[in-house]
């Protein structure tokens, strides 16, 4: 198996190739440079792995949650490459791949729980939590939207290793949460998404046959657009509602 994995859901974009368990990763030079650099870093990852694009067997993408725009860049490139190269796709959760990436660091710092938290603004998050058992991640709290306070409450009593840009936004709230037994926050690059972890999870998924056709590789935004949300809640502006009634 030779899998190309793309990760563009956070502020740093990256591409990785996993070939027989060895991972080769290339990163974009700046923040939020995803569209400009995605093909360049894809080429760099392939070159580092010493394989050509024709030798690839799968295309994987981190499908979210995260930046809506970022998610779309990675997923669109993955879908189109898979379409053109006639390859199956693998969908990977950005939260789970972040947890995977810090698993060892978490165990080394004495935490038995990993919490991946992405900032969704105004105290909201996209988050999930895993227990580490025998070096494996076991789902503890489902990936979904949480208010940061609600998420922290559910982690009470655990020794938690935090990862994700939710730390940047909610560091003080996490520090003030007294219910946690202990906490550690991922530092530096380890705090953010990387294609290296996406590639590893993709290889596991692909070996278990968890692949989809390119048309079925879909973003996992975890949230409706604001307009759809308002339509659902019935809070679209009156003028538009009136027009809709007229049909």
């Amino acid at each position, binding site marked *: 198996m030779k899998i190309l994995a793309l990760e563009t859901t956070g502020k740093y974009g990256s591409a990785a190739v996993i070939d027989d368990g060895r991972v080769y990763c290339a990163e974009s030079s700046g923040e939020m440079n995803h*569209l*400009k*650099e*995605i*093909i*360049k870093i*894809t*080429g760099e990852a392939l070159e580092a792995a010493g394989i050509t*694009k024709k030798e690839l067997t799968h295309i994987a993408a981190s499908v979210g949650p995260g930046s*809506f*725009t970022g998610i*779309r*860049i990675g*997923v*669109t*490139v*993955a*879908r*189109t*490459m898979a*379409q*053109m*190269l006639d390859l199956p796709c693998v969908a990977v959760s950005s939260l789970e791949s972040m947890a995977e990436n810090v698993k060892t660091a978490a165990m080394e710092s004495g935490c038995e729980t990993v919490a991946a938290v992405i900032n969704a603004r105004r105290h909201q998050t996209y988050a999930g939590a895993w227990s580490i058992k025998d070096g494996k991640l076991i789902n503890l709290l489902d990936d979904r939207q949480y208010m940061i306070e609600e998420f922290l409450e559910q982690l009470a009593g655990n020794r938690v290793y935090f990862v994700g840009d939710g730390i940047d936004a909610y560091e003080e709230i996490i520090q003030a949460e007294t219910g946690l037994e202990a906490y550690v926050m991922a530092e530096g690059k380890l705090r953010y998404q990387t294609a290296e972890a996406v590639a590893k999870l993709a290889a596991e998924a692909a070996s278990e046959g968890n692949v989809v056709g*390119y*048309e079925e590789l*879909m*973003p996992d*935004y975890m949230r409706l*657009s*604001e*307009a*759809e949300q308002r*339509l659902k809640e019935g809070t*679209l*502006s009156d*003028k*538009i509602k*009136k*027009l*809709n009634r*007229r049909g």
Partner: protein
Amino acid sequence: MKNGKFITLGIETSCDESAASIVADGRELLSNVISSQIDIHTQFGGVVPEIASRKHLENINMVIDKAIKDANCTVDDIDLIGVTYGPGLVGALLIGVAAAKAMAYACDIPLVGVNHMHGHVAANYLEHPELEPPFMGLVVSGGHTNIIFVEEYNTCRKLGGTRDDAAGEAFDKVARVIGLGYPGGPKVDKAAREGDKAAIDFKRVYLEKGSYDFSFSGLKTQALNYLNTEKQAGREINVNDVAASFQEAVVEVIVDKAIAAALEYDQKRIVMAGGVASNSRLRELICERAAEHNIEVLRPSPILCTDNGAMIASAAYYAYKNGERSGFDLDAVPGLEF
């Protein structure tokens, strides 16, 4: 290459249509696939950028696939990929750009980023096989109102544009307040046919003497004020009269300026483009006035006036022939100038 012809795939996602098309030798339409999202956005009273972006992602690969199949081509036949990289909604543009780059990379096909406005002009090359520059271009759409002197295939000089709202935008807003809904252009056009265009004296805004720029925001405000005054006085509003009078005020200014530009630059052809080029009153009046000066008016059929991939393919072809190439670092530029 197919049957000795140069094959271009054009991709367009700048607003609410996901579109792709195959064009041979820059002129011959082999397929034209447009997946419109209009039904989705209508319930929100206009294009919602986040929803447009989500739908483009879901549609684009199928649209590309269908364009290739409809043309009886394979990916191997494609010599060039052209893609709109601006102007437009950034989230929408980047789906087309990401797909085009991924395809160009995966299949080793050259790539050219196309200015959406140049694409609208190029729609005429598909419609009129004999048309060659120079000519005077009039691009009127939901987001743009421009008078363009097209000197050569790849040299477009913008003589004037809108300083505030585009013509189509003004149509949309007025349509909304008189209860016609979205999309405003076609609905105003239809209502206006039943109305009296002299019923209300809306002002014609020409700006400084000799200027080819437009300003429609004052007219829009005047229309809103008129509606408020009538409502407060308890008078019934004749929607058709408002539509006809408003449309006439927009159309007259556009036509006067386009004719003036053609005369000043000694051009015997005015070439229309963009969604609003389908407006029936605009077509009628410009043909009437142009005939007085022996000027010929050309325009594409309505399907090529709306956003489409074919016009992008044609523009890309001429840019490519001129030596233009885009790298894999091609970015979406929402505010791209003409």
